[in-house]
């Protein structure tokens, strides 16, 4: 028998065997509170250490209360989720957690978005009956992420993301008892660990134990400086999520309102990273075609599959774990960096501003981009191509500080020329999008024919690893797609073993791609939010008049007046990069 019948809060319910009490209750609309538990089921991500015990329920006939998140339903079970015994137990658990938590809510980076805070509110905690010593630990700041371990409640969600989903293993529970913390090996700073800055630990941390490095102050100062021209670029995934920070439904596209907000904030030019995404396709697509042509001509030396290179966390990952294969990824820089490079050369010249007086700000769904823009190779004489990378969340804060209500702002258009983009660029924001965009352009250039359908639905979805074959004029081009570094690792190991069947592979570090980036409004474990954002991205693509990167008129002009051809010497110099072997950081800490 596969169906199990039970009663929860006097309501009968039938569920498939293996369903937890938590899930069964949710199917009845009963929201049992959880803290350590996290389930993103569409992505096969689950954290179930049964550690916090906030989700306890009473099961008739059992002596002890049971954690709903880790208790399977059984035939005939009678469950109460909110009797006095349960409520008291839950309150005790909460008070115990809070007795070792700093009371800094008013000035905390997570104020208003913290799960612990909202749980305390829901449980009606008014007093803490337990007093004790509070654990303290040093703060750790890296280029992207701040660790404030004093705020850690040891839910281990970060550890699960870093170990199971990303297979990076930068974080682990160390020490025990009162000294227990989640930390990198030897408790070194994150910066010296194998961390890729994907930010997925930050994305799931219920408290402010893990947060992004905040650069809003620096951006405000630049905006206030009359000597500076400050321009901004916004990544595709931002417009599909920013609205959530203003109470809008997940999946609401706010492109036009976001542009208005950025103008109100005082940016001199409001541009689009999508412009640079189209540029990326020109370079990366040409590179793909070049390798493919050589392959078809029988060149045995040619490195295939080619791997996309626009996700900086992914770049960090292969520089650490697959440095022996660093000639396989495309050498194309990420759209963020291509934008910065073109802005501080071509555009700066056009408007007659010195590089030093031009400040390039980017709005990203991403924490790795904060690190990326600080990489030395992306600067000229110490002046970075991109000065500051803010997250979607930081932008939301700036908009609120400026007393703007995003919902009420009118729609407006990006500035020209670096605001012009195509539908192909928009879909960079989701897993599968970069390769679909590349296929649209590479197909037309390779075959000389125009595509009669631009939607490659076979490349879309949220499955961890996807593959599809696209007919390139008789040649079956085999494509692989992975999101999440653990999934990427599988494809990479196949290549290393010489077993890979693919010609091109797209990799994104975050679940769902950038829509699920570490800098996005928090999903609080609800994967339907990621799905809604993904849908929004494809809608924006469909709404675009031009949907192929090589047809972007601003890009065509950029090549005609400045770059020459894709992969020209100038393009190589400004738009491509090389990779380094990151030592699997041997301990050199003391």
């Amino acid at each position: 028998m596969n169906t199990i019948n039970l009663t929860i809060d006097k309501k009968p319910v039938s569920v498939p065997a293996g369903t937890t009490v938590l899930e069964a209750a949710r199917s009845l609309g009963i929201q049992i509170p959880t803290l350590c538990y996290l389930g993103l089921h569409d992505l096969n991500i689950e954290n179930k250490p049964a550690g916090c015990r906030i989700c306890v329920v009473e099961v008739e006939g059992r002596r002890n209360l049971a954690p709903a998140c880790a208790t399977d339903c059984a035939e005939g079970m009678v469950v109460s989720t909110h009797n006095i015994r349960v409520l008291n137990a839950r309150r005790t658990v909460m008070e115990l957690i809070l007795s070792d938590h700093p009371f800094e809510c008013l000035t905390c980076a997570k104020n208003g978005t913290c799960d612990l805070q909202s749980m305390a509110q829901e449980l009606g905690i008014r007093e803490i009956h337990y007093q004790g010593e509070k654990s303290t630990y040093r703060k750790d700041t890296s280029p992207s992420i701040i660790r404030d371990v004093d705020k850690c409640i040891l839910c281990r969600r970060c550890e699960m993301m870093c170990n199971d989903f990303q297979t990076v293993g930068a974080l682990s529970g160390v020490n025990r008892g009162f000294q227990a913390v989640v930390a990198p090996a030897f408790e070194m700073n994150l910066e010296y660990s194998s961390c890729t800055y994907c930010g997925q630990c930050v994305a799931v941390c219920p408290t402010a134990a893990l947060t992004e490095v905040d650069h809003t102050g620096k951006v405000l100062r630049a905006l206030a400086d009359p000597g500076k021209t400050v321009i901004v670029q916004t990544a595709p995934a931002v417009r599909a999520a920013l609205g959530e920070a203003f109470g809008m439904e997940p999946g609401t596209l706010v492109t036009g309102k976001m542009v208005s907000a950025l103008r109100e904030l005082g940016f001199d030019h409001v541009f689009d990273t999508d412009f640079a995404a189209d540029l990326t396709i020109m370079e990366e697509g040409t590179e793909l075609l070049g390798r493919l042509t050589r392959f078809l001509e029988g060149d045995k030396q040619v490195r295939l599959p080619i791997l996309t290179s626009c996700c900086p966390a992914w770049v960090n990952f292969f520089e650490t774990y697959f440095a022996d294969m660093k000639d396989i990824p495309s050498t194309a820089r990420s759209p963020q960096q291509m934008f910065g490079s073109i802005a501080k050369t071509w555009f700066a010249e056009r408007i007659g501003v010195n590089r030093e007086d031009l400040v390039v700000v980017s709005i990203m769904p991403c924490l790795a981009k904060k690190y990326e823009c600080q990489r030395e190779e992306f600067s000229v004489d110490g002046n970075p191509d991109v000065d500051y990378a803010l997250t979607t969340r930081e932008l939301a804060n700036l908009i609120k500080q400026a007393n703007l209500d995003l919902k009420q702002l009118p729609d407006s258009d990006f500035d020209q020329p670096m605001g012009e983009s195509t539908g192909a660029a928009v879909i960079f924001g989701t897993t599968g999008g970069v390769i679909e965009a590349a296929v649209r352009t590479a197909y037309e250039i390779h075959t000389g024919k125009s595509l009669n359908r631009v939607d490659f639905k076979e490349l879309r979805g949220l499955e961890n690893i996807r593959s599809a074959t696209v007919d390139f004029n008789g040649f079956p081009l085999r494509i692989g797609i992975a999101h999440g570094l653990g999934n990427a690792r599988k494809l990479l190991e196949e290549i290393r073993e010489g077993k890979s069947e693919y010609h091109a592979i797209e990799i994104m570090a975050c679940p769902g791609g950038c829509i699920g980036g570490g800098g996005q409004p928090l999903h609080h474990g609800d994967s339907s939010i990621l799905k809604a954002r993904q849908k929004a991205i494809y809608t924006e693509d469909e709404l675009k008049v031009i949907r192929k990167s090589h047809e972007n008129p601003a890009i065509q002009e950029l090549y005609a007046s400045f770059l020459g051809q894709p992969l020209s010497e100038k393009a190589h110099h400004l738009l491509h990069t090389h990779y380094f072997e990151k030592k699997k950081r041997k301990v050199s800490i003391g």
Partner: protein
Amino acid sequence: MTSIKVELKQHQAEKLREVCRSFGNQEGELINVLHKAQGIFGYLPAEVQEMVAEELNVPVARVYGVVTFYSFFSMIPKGRNPISICTGTACYVRGAEKVLDEFRKQLSIGIGETTPDGKFSINCLRCVGACGLAPVVMIGEKTYGRVAPDEVKAILKEYEND
């Protein structure tokens, strides 16, 4: 955390790899491998943990997590003259704790620690089976019986030129 930088010598590294191999380089054998490794090196410096992580293909953060979870594992090398004080029942009853306190005071280190010059370290032992001599202290191979706190100074003096 104290970190002591050591380069693993070639033969030590080989020995460690051999240990990992003898456990089939299995992730699940991590604790057993670490146990053996501590037997070889006396402690588990960062370099040893890194090598174990590489051989068993587990993140080094996780290895460190295990090392810091079990008090049996140590990241600090024992002193050249490791002092072991029996705190079994018989020794305890006859004042082992006072003796222990005196050693700690004289050397300014705690249990499980090593003096900065690497000369002494202090550890506690469960009953060593010499109850007739309680309280018992061992320094290296040498055993001292019926130790009184006021003898500690003289005992340490024996190692003056070590």
